[in-house]
């Protein structure tokens, strides 16, 4: 069990990252602060929020932002620049590749869905990944596996063989998600960095926890054993044994773990308001406070990884605010969502 509030990172200083760490510290000073987030929440018009972001460096290389349609594009450019920074500064390519491969797995999902639903979904592909989209396309459409990783090849092969029998699109996402985490574990565990391993286990635990609560709420507990991800600190058996139990029992079962607050408060909000937003912002918040521990680390890959992930959470907060603003969500609701997670 990873107790975030008491987590003492065992950092090993890695002087190869001295330059990277210096650069990250300078970049960290430009991240949105609490008052920036507050300012964003309080703007009247979403255009104003976009303007604040552009002034705060979000515009980047964009010539000029013209409102809403460009907003997601703006975030994507930021996302790209963060990933580029990671590739540039990382001395351990296996780790920076892990972050790139997330996009491979995403693209793989899109391509597999396009293949089996006979649609053209090319507009959904994201061209950041480690494997080029053309190679992935060849692998999915023509079973030509040159240039793709073993994990991707396995997934395509597996989906191809079971598809006829199941015809269930959910299968594609579940297969890709599960194997993505397997792949990440297979990179992170031999790498031997405790911070990274703990982060990944935390992610898996929280992903499983959310999945578990969602399935329970939906009454779909029978598929639970297929969709849980392996490799976290919470045993799969623990979740399986809680199938069909009352919500009180579930909260009780996690009381003594580091996830007690996330579960208790998240479930409370779920039952009151039929919304998972609290659960999700609390679980994001837990990961964020875990990642912030990397600020204690003078040199190493940890600050770099933490910076990349924290920026991604920042983008998420910004998106929640701007999308909320566009759709006239009350300030307090936006604040409640963002404050638990980001600030």
């Amino acid at each position: 069990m990873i107790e975030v509030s008491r987590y003492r990172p065992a950092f090993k200083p890695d002087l190869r990252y001295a330059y990277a760490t210096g650069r990250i510290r300078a970049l960290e000073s430009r991240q949105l602060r609490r008052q920036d987030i507050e300012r964003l929440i309080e703007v009247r018009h979403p255009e104003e929020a976009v303007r604040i972001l552009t002034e705060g460096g979000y515009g980047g290389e964009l010539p000029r932002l013209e409102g809403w349609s460009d907003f997601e594009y703006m975030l994507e450019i930021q996302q790209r620049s963060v990933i580029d920074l990671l590739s540039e500064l990382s001395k351990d390519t296996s780790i920076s590749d892990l972050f790139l491969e997330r996009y491979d797995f995403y693209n793989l999902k899109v391509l597999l869905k396009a293949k089996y639903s006979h649609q053209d979904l090319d507009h959904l592909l994201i061209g950041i990944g480690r494997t080029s989209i053309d190679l992935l396309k060849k692998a999915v459409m023509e079973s030509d596996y040159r240039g793709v990783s073993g994990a991707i090849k396995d997934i395509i092969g597996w989906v191809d063989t079971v598809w006829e029998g199941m015809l269930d699109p959910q299968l594609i996402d579940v297969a890709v998600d599960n194997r993505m985490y397997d792949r990440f574990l297979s990179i992170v565990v031999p790498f031997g960095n405790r911070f990274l391993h703990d982060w990944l286990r935390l992610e898996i635990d929280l992903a499983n926890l959310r999945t578990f609560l969602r399935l329970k709420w939906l009454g779909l507990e029978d598929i639970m054993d297929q969709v849980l991800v392996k490799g976290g600190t919470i045993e799969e058996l623990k979740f399986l044994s809680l199938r069909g139990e009352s919500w009180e029992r579930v909260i009780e079962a996690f009381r003594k773990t580091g996830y007690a607050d996330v579960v208790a408060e998240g479930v409370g909000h779920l039952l009151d308001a039929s919304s998972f937003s609290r659960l999700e912002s609390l679980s994001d918040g837990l990961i964020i406070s875990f990642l912030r521990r990397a600020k204690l680390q003078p040199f190493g890959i940890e600050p770099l990884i933490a910076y990349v992930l924290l920026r991604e959470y920042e983008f998420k907060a910004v998106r929640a605010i701007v999308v909320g603003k566009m759709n006239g969500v009350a300030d307090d609701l936006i604040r409640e969502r963002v404050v638990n997670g980001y600030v």
Partner: protein
Amino acid sequence: MRLTVSATRMELLRLKKRLILARRGHKLLKDKQDELMSQLLGLVERIGEVRREVETRLEEVYGHFLSARMSLDDRTLEAALSFPGKVVKLKATQRLILNIRVPVLKPEIEGKIYCYGFASTPGDLDVALKKLEQLLEKMIQLAEMEKTLQLLADEIERTRRRVNALEYVLIPDLQEAIKYITMKLEEMERESLTRLMRVKEIIRGE
């Protein structure tokens, strides 16, 4: 407008029969219109109820969907939903209300509505889809009712046009024609009476 009729007794009889027929038809159509009207009003009331319910619940669905959208970018969200697992087939049959054919929609729903992985999507998407799924049958029912309403309204319109045609054109015309023929016939009668009297006088005078 006066009907161009020949003022004969035969014609008068024929017109009188037509008038009786028109009056009966008018009454029948009027009854039909009233009946349709009461059906329509009942339906409108029920539709109002269902529509309000569907709208409030749809609003809820959009709320949850918005909440999901707040934590996921548009592309990933679209990718998650790009391959729906739920197939809804509608089977349309017909039923008769007062001789009007109205549709009966029977949905055949199969597959799961949750077509995406759980690890990479926000939970409020589940909530939105669950509520949408519960709403689906209501929405189909509403569609069916609204189509029926439309057909009923068309029929009422048509019936009213007929009633009006009978009431304001055909019946007054017939009445006028009958009056005209009656008067004409009376006139002719008087004429022939006068003629007879004149003939009689001539005969008497000789």
